[in-house]
């Protein structure tokens, strides 16, 4: 028995909760690494600016962690509340990484607590820095484990289904499914990249708003460098994700690329819109590019949507999401490489207001890319919740009150979203860098 209305609202509520959680979670995964780098550079160069950078980032980070924790707890419970049938089945095979995720986070939370309250307790600064390592490891492994759960939903394996019953369960095999390597590396890499560009965006914003302090310039260069490095890695893992899709989820790739007929030497459709008759207009067509993306060879055959039953094709709108994500990736690599190269060369156009605004834009844009990427991956899996095994509608709850809960939770996210922004801006506005540096008497000549 499927309750259509409950299915519909459960989907919306899941989408809303995850889309909200992912913003804070991404920052939660990436920022500890950046704090660690700043703190380390600060100690090594004996430069108080970097130390203060680490300190101020940490303060902001605590707020995002708090929202990450409460929304994460929410989604953790909602998986059982909204998808009880799915969890009953999936729990048998993929509960292990979920269980390990709590340990990873536990580890992170403990050391974050200690790090926060021990800034001036250690004579040897390196000891204090040491406390950050478990924080960064814990946060990243949270992402690794939860992404493993998601990759299992895309490429389930490690069990046999006999008359709807699970037999021969192998939790380890289920974890190391074909989707796992590309998904995990792409997700973790994008988290580092996004965090770097979000912090760069803040530094650039302060510079535009008139603070010409070297502190912000150092912050900007550092974050742009880190952002650049991780953007390179995600271009590689993104390309590998495409190859994974071609092999294991060809319907997702075909829908994302509007690739209707199975052909060799397939062209890649960039941008474009689809009208009501299903015709593609205004698109850029790059010959051979899809075959290269899918199989690494210009003449390879790429499976098209003609190979799939009508009711197993994901929504074609994911094409737009794919374009947004890839577009942001290309834009950010260009911006960051230009910036770093120009700094090295002493070109000054990257210090103009215009270029800085571009960097400011990069923060929100990468977050949009994260959202687009997840929507691509999740909507592209439809109509399945467990690909090939359980349809989304079969996994949902039958409870009649989901609509009411949707309203309640939307209210909660509005409060949390506004609350966290207000607190963060107030926290830093009330305590500007210049004053804090003066108080610490740590200002080095600029």
């Amino acid at each position: 028995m499927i309750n259509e209305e409950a299915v519909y609202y459960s989907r919306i509520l899941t989408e809303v909760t995850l889309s909200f959680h992912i913003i804070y979670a991404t920052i939660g995964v990436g920022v500890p690494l950046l704090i660690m780098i700043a703190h380390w550079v600060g100690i090594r160069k004996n430069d108080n600016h970097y130390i203060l950078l680490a300190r101020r980032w940490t303060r902001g980070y605590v707020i995002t962690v708090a929202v990450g924790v409460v929304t994460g707890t929410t989604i953790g419970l909602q998986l059982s509340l909204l998808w009880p049938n799915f969890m009953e089945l999936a729990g048998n095979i993929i509960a292990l990484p979920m269980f390990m995720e709590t340990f990873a986070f536990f580890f992170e939370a403990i050391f974050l607590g200690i790090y926060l309250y021990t800034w001036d307790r250690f004579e040897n600064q390196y000891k204090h820095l040491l406390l950050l390592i478990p924080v960064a490891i814990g946060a990243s492994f949270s992402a690794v484990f939860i992404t493993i759960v998601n990759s299992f939903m895309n490429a389930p394996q490690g069990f046999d289904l006999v008359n709807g019953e699970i037999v021969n369960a192998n939790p380890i095999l289920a974890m190391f499914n074909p989707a796992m390597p590309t998904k995990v590396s792409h997700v973790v890499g994008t988290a580092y990249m996004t965090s770097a560009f979000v912090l760069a965006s803040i530094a650039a914003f302060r510079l535009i708003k008139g603070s010409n302090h070297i502190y912000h310039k150092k912050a900007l260069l550092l974050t742009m460098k880190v952002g650049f490095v991780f953007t390179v890695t995600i271009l590689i893992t993104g390309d590998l994700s495409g190859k994974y899709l071609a092999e294991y989820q060809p319907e997702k790739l075909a829908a994302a690329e509007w690739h209707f007929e199975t052909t060799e030497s397939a062209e890649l459709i960039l941008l474009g819109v689809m009208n009501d008759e299903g015709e593609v207009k205004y698109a850029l067509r790059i010959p051979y590019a899809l075959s290269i993306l899918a199989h690494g060879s210009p003449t390879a055959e790429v499976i098209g949507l003609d190979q799939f039953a009508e009711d197993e094709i994901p929504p074609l709108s994911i094409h737009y999401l794919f374009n947004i994500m890839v577009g942001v990736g290309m834009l950010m690599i260009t911006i960051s490489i230009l910036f770093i190269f120009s700094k090295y060369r002493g070109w000054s156009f990257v210090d103009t207001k215009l270029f800085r605004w571009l960097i400011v834009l990069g923060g929100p844009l990468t977050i949009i890319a994260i959202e687009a990427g997840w929507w691509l991956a999740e909507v592209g899996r439809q109509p399945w919740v467990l690909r090939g095994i359980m349809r989304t509608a079969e996994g949902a709850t039958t409870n009649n009150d989901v609509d009411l809960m949707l309203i309640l939770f939307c209210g909660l996210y509005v409060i949390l979203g506004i609350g966290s922004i207000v607190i963060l801006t107030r926290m830093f506005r009330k305590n500007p860098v210049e004053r804090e540096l003066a108080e610490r008497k740590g200002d080095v000549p600029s």
Partner: protein
Amino acid sequence: MSVDLEIIGIVVLWTFLFGYILIASIDFGAGFFNAYGLFTNRQHILTKIIQRYLSPVWEVTNVFLVFFFVGVVGFFPSTAFYYGTTLLVPVSIAILLLAIRGSYYAFETYGSRSHKGYAFMYGLSGLLLPAALSIVLTISEGGFVFMQNGNPVLDYWALFSSPLTWSIVVLSVSAVLYISAVFLTWYANKANDKPATALLRRYALIWALPTIITAGGIIYELRFHNPEHYERLLGLGWMFLISGVLFVGTVWLVWRRKNYGVAFVLLFGQFAFAFYGYGISHYPYLLYPHLTLYDSFTNEAMAIALIIAFIAGLALLIPSLYLILRLFLFNKEYVSGKSKQEH
């Protein structure tokens, strides 16, 4: 090996739930006393001591809960079907309260000056949460969930008109305040804060009585609500007897203003005996009469994998937990506010 994997699983989970209940009670109660102090102008006595305790641990508290519910679905996937379907509303409300509580706590502590409204919300949610969460235990007693077209449905009218429900709500709230007051009395005493100790000691004594009365009342009500469970409870009478003796010990020590540390240890024992006694007597049902440990259990491979992960996880966590306890809870300088703290 003669111990069933099912038993190992449930003991691990029950222990984590017990850990959560103790730590969260201290946290919920502290929030309530803080708000209460604020509105009766006794804030200056309590706030410092309470903040000092709460600050470093709130996320850790939350993880215990997450650990419990993730573990339950891992070891007993069918609980997702029965409890997940029926508990949508009560658990969603609990999540909402937890979310408001956790975030505003962080917003206030790290973000800005204190605000009376936040403190009030924080305190109030601390009382509503045990009430909302305790509904899960009530439902597990059976009689509130029926099957419709093969799907479980919760009967709200039966639930809210049952005296059992309301006694469990009252017990959860008064136990929270009692546990919290006893712990904080000890903590304040360690910090050498005389006025706070005196005030918290009074709260401890006030909340002792309702706790023990409702606990007794619930056993009595179970006799009518779920005779099978009641019989099994009586079979474990000795555990509840020990629990009662420990309760008397705690109250006596707090009354005589002696050994608050020992008093808290006795309280720990009191709740441990009662909690495990209750748990054992619930065996083998997870949800009367629909679901037992055995029909909801996961496959053997997953169970073993989870247990190994659990042991490995503990090996990592116990030293870290020890570190945080040493640095904050049991560090004389930190507790009494002498050491420099910053964030």
